[in-house]
């Protein structure tokens, strides 16, 4: 059906849009950038920051353009003297109750409030007064909340609720002392929070940040007695360039490796090899579950936010999770076993760092279920893409200017299948490239499963394994995962294999990734470009199937034995436990 089109005039300029479009979106179409603070398309369309107010002819009072539907013939003004003074007043008021420590704020120069203050040329603050009571909550291993910087836009609340279905935080108290927090003023650690960090990357200011481990890392890098190694997750190579002014979607794998070496890491390994091993284990596990018709559908277990979510919200579904460790943990384990043995280093002297797109990984590494012998952690420190960029900048390393370098071997060669782990559908696609080979040695000719790619919240496909058709599903964003899990709980799930990624888009949009402010993000397809970078890397890769990775072959031959064999099972598999939390009824 053809959509009805309407034409309106904004600041004297005509624009034609589909009926149902908001005034704000119509204005953006003709490059009129109405200021916003709370707006997040489809997630936080609440009209509460009042910065997007406009004047509409014939309508009484100013209206929030982010929620006001455009109408045919409407005449809108966005920049009258009165409107601008009103918005300036709102900014002055917000600043009067905001902890203005911009110089030491991690979001300085990438802060929507700071940006608008500059835009309005706010030079004095006429309404200073009492500050609202605030919370500093660093109880979580993943994120830190400082409500003194919060402007109560509620993006975090609605991302957590609508996109993730977690609802860990909400608005507490009333009026001037309103704040975002956990029910009953508990710390975030006691909440349903899964550590995904979607709140952090959608926060327009510095009220939500990752729990930084930069200081820990600096300390070990300066310690000559430590053997400090780092692994880099699939998705980081597609985003870290953004932090150094490279265009969104630029693959910076070689430059990143070079930068990390300069920073002082003894070895730079590739988590993507861990991903290849994950496929060997997980695909083998899937085949045996299929054969035994046991615990189906099987669900992927790479995404640590998802693991926490399952343990907190769906403990009855834990047996469906693959027992295979995440690629990061697999590589971490191999570093402290295989690599240590090979290089004759005491694993206790290795400090193993993981450069991750993710804040949830910070909690994953301390899980008891993942401890190696002697209570050793496989990974000692998780650093997010944003943290690493800060560290590099401090050390005068401009990643963008470096020449490409290769990963260290062993544990440095990966396949295209490993690269695409960083985007939604990638784990499933990588698994499917190897399933038939692992089953009966059949090599698939077609390696690209385009129907598994893309932005749909839940994607479905059918695959043929030894003449039998199986349904598979892929979900991104935990609210979508819930739909698939509810079916499993009801016994109505029709799938054999499900990939679940915590964040929409997968790891390329993880909670540790570079923050692209909403207005910029509305103009370009950030997730599409980042995913494309990974698919291109896959296309160019020498090997595109995990089982073809020569290092992986060697690893199994020399060290692990069979996938899902005794040794690999001991080292590369884990288990899950129910976590007791108070879950609000939906």
């Amino acid at each position: 059906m053809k959509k009805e089109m309407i034409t309106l005039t904004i600041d004297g300029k005509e624009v034609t849009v589909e009926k149902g479009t908001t005034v704000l979106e119509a204005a953006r179409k003709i490059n009129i950038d109405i200021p916003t603070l709370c707006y997040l398309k489809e997630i936080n369309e609440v009209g509460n920051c009042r910065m997007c107010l406009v004047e509409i002819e014939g309508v009484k009072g100013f209206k929030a353009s982010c929620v006001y539907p455009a109408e045919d013939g409407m005449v809108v003004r966005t920049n009258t003297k009165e409107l601008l003074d009103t918005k300036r007043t709102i900014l002055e008021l917000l600043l009067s109750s905001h902890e203005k420590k911009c110089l030491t704020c991690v979001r300085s120069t990438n802060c929507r409030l700071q940006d608008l203050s500059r835009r309005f040329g706010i030079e004095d603050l006429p309404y200073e007064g009492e500050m609202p009571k605030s919370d500093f909550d660093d109880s979580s291993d993943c994120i830190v909340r400082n409500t003194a910087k919060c402007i109560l836009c509620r993006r975090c609340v609605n991302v957590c609720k609508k996109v993730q279905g977690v609802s860990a935080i909400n608005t507490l108290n009333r009026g001037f002392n309103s704040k975002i927090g956990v029910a009953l003023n508990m710390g975030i650690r006691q909440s349903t929070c899964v550590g995904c960090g979607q709140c952090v990357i959608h926060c327009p200011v510095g009220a939500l940040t990752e729990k930084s481990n930069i200081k820990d890392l600096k300390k070990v890098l300066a310690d000559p007695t430590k053997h400090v190694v780092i692994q880099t997750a699939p998705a980081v190579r597609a985003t870290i360039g953004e932090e150094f002014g490279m265009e969104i979607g630029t693959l910076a794998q070689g430059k990143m490796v070079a930068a990390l070496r300069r920073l002082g890491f003894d070895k730079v390994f590739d988590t993507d090899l861990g991903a290849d091993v994950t496929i060997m284990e997980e695909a083998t596990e899937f085949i045996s579950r299929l054969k035994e018709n046991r615990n189906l559908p099987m669900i992927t277990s790479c995404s640590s936010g998802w693991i926490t979510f399952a343990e907190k919200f769906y403990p009855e579904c834990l047996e469906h999770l693959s027992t295979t460790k995440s690629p990061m943990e697999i590589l971490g384990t191999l570093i402290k076993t295989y690599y240590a043995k090979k290089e004759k280093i005491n694993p206790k002297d290795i400090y193993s760092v993981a450069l991750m797109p993710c804040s949830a990984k910070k909690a994953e590494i301390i899980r008891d279920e993942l401890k190696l012998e002697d209570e050793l952690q496989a990974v000692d420190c998780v650093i997010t893409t944003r943290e690493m960029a800060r560290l590099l900048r401090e050390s005068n390393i401009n990643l963008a200017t470096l020449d490409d370098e290769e990963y260290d071997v062993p544990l440095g060669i990966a396949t295209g299948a490993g690269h695409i782990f960083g985007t939604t559908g990638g784990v499933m696609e990588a698994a499917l490239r190897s399933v038939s080979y692992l089953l009966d040695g059949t090599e698939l000719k077609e390696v690209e499963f385009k129907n598994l790619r893309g932005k749909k919240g839940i994607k479905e496909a059918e695959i043929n394994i030894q003449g039998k058709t199986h349904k598979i599903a892929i979900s991104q964003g935990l609210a979508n995962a819930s739909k698939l899990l509810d079916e499993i709980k009801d016994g109505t799930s029709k799938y054999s294999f499900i990939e679940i990624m915590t964040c929409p888009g997968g790891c390329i949009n993880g909670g540790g990734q570079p923050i692209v402010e909403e207005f910029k993000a509305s103009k370009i397809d950030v997730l599409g470009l980042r995913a494309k970078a990974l698919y291109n890397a896959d296309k160019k890769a020498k090997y595109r199937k995990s089982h073809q990775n020569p290092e992986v072959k060697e690893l199994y031959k020399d060290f692990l034995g069979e996938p899902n064999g005794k040794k690999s099972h001991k080292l590369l598999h884990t288990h899950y436990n129910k976590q007791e939390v108070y879950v609000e009824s939906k």
Partner: protein
Amino acid sequence: MDIKELNKLKEKNSAVLKKKRIMVCSGTGCTSSKSDVLLSNLKKIVKDKNIKDILVEKTGCFGFCAKGPIVVIDPDEIFYEMVKPEDAEDIVASVVDKKPLERLLAKEEDKYVKKWHELNFYNKQKRIALKNCGTINPEKIEEYIAVDGYQALYKALNMTRDEVIEEINISGLRGRGGAGFPTGKKWLFTKNSEADQKYVCCNADEGDPGAFMDRSILEGDPHSVIEAMAIAAYAVGATQGYIYVRAEYPIAVERLNIAIKQAKEKGLLGKNIFGKGLDFELELRLGAGAFVCGEETALMNSIEGKRGEPRPRPPFPAVKGLFEKPTLLNNVETYANVPKIILNGGKWYKSIGTENSKGTKVFALGGNINNVGLVEVPMGTTLREIVYDIGGGVPGGKRFKAAQTGGPSGGCIPAKYIDTPIDYESLSSIGSMMGSGGLIVMDESKCMVNLAKFFLEFTVDESCGKCPPCRIGTKRMLEILTRITEGKGKEGDIEKLERLAKNIKSASLCGLGQTAPNPVLSTLKYFRDEYEAHIKEKRCPAGECKALTQVHIDPEKCKQCGICAKNCPVGAIEGEVRKGPFKINQDKCIKCGVCITKCPFKAISK
């Protein structure tokens, strides 16, 4: 229930209403002055003495709260004021003897007034919304039926839906909750929204400080609201209703619960009402007392179990309201007018009031006024008539300074506008608003800066916190007002207040924020000199702001007796008897004013 049964009940119970009845006000005000004890005393005496022809009944608010507890002896309408539980015996005896009890009668101009409608307080009133308050027992549906109850519903069900809405349109009825939106229009919008489910809601979240008309209607005549909601449900096509009432109104909640139960038992709620195919269920939802939940979208959020805060409009409730379905929302007083309009016709209602404001309005009269209470007057009645003729004027012979209407959303009306006929338009033209009907009278001793501060304290407390202009802006205004009243006001503060006020009004998400600056703007408009005196001269002209008042002893008048010093609670008065005039140490003085009242020579003043 069919119409025959209803008429039969009506006939039977009208006879009851003609019997000798002792009607005891059982509204919240009189109950808190022990009218409940009085009621049980009366019942016990009548029972013990086995008096068969006298009935003792609870009834709703008479409105003359300053004189409560109130008892009226029907059918003669004999009005007793300030009755105590121990008066029960005498009252019963007087009814038996058919001799009015003089000591409990009201006195006006040295004459006893027997009948309640003859009191000056009631003289200029016209009770439509409050019609049944004080005349029937609100806990007995039969009594409501006896006074034409549910006849309007039957009549409406025999009209088309459009005819019902047209009748409301003709009447000119406008929302009594404050904004004054035409009720018929609202009904029509809701009717015109197509949906599988629609709702009818009653806003009984009365929150204006001092206003209690909705509470009184619910306590005194709950069925009128239920009947109106059923009529509305028919007109707009709804099948489910909710009354959102404050949990702080326990008596209203109890009577509503009783009324809903009785209406269900009689088939006046439920399936196929009067056999006319109307299905209508009604439930209560209790609010936790947030002022903003009186705002329609916040109210609906609260009913849905969400945080009580407004949502942007559009979509309007008539299109997408409760649970995202078309919803009609009116306030209690608006509904209370509906059955009367349907029964008597829109034209009848239209004949009362002014050009654009029809019918009557109930006001809660409070502050510096003799007759504190609830009054219902035709639109267009002047403030002077309300304050002096009905309200009995300002106590203590003080000068009338101003009146605040519309509570924290409204503004003050200075003495020069006392002859303004009150209606929606006239009030807003002088910078105030009708609001839900709070009317607070202030005498010359009230400081207008302090008044504005009082209302801002209220809005700061009640802001939900959703949008910054209201959340932070009202707080900043309050901070400025506070420093002005404490003598710390600065040059430029008035301009800051004005700029904040203007922008909070234009930027706030809902009515609470959009109207919160009104008390400041209207006091600035009419009493700017008071603000300036506070800031520039560090002086509070009304003498109310303690930090700015100084108490002085006139050395000429001081007879050096020392009584003031003896009575000063903080030892701030220095001097020795007969050794020169006494002096007040301003650093110690707490401005309590005790010395002023104690000085036999009137030598001390503020």
